[in-house]
């Protein structure tokens, strides 16, 4: 089974290799990295928590939605959890399409959806030793109407 959520450092090369496709002229990659400040406070690192089984499902769903909504041929998402240092990569999104506009749109869709829907939580650590969980987006269960569609 493809792993999308892992506590190991993320590696871009295998994502590029598994999506290689001569029918694609455009590749867009998004990556999130741990930033050294947030709202003016100096940050020393970040701990990511996740509901791994549900997050795996949600990331796979977002990949499938990107393929269904945009003219793209590949969308792969991997997210790291656990303790990350400054500069560490927390997420890679790799999109390949025939043309660039669709690749950009799909990558943007994917990261926006990950932030809104993936059951993943950031705890920010500060250089003064304090830490806090970041505010986020409340999850909603899919409505029965949506299921029936």
């Amino acid at each position: 089974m493809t792993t999308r959520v892992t506590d190991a450092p993320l590696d871009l090369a295998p994502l590029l290799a598994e999506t290689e496709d001569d029918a694609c002229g455009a590749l867009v990659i998004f990556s999130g990295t741990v930033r050294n400040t947030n709202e003016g406070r100096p940050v020393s690192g970040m701990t990511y928590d996740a509901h791994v089984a549900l997050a795996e499902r949600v990331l796979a769903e977002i990949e499938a939605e990107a393929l269904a909504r945009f003219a793209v041929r590949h969308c792969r998402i991997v997210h790291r959890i656990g303790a990350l240092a400054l500069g560490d990569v927390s997420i890679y999104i790799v999109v390949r399409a025939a043309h660039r506009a669709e690749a950009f749109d799909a990558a943007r869709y994917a990261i926006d959806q990950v932030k809104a829907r993936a059951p993943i939580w950031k705890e920010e650590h500060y250089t003064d030793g304090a830490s806090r969980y970041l505010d986020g987006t409340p999850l909603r269960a899919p409505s029965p109407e949506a299921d029936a569609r």
Partner: protein
Amino acid sequence: MHIRVTFYGRLKQDTGTRQAALELPGDRATVRDAVEAALKAYPTLAAHLDTLACSVGAALADPGTPIRDGDEIGFLPPVSGG
């Protein structure tokens, strides 16, 4: 009925607990019943009820979703991944 509850993100911090076993009366229950039982055991959850979501196993669940003996109920605060 025995269930397990798992607290994620700041709920783990606020309850001081990653996972706990809870007992629900009777043999029929819903997610709503699990939340009420967890609230009794972990009163600090009260501050998070407005933005709480729940999972049963690997799926998001509504308050009315039925649960069975042995289910694992996830308590999910607002998400902030990426």
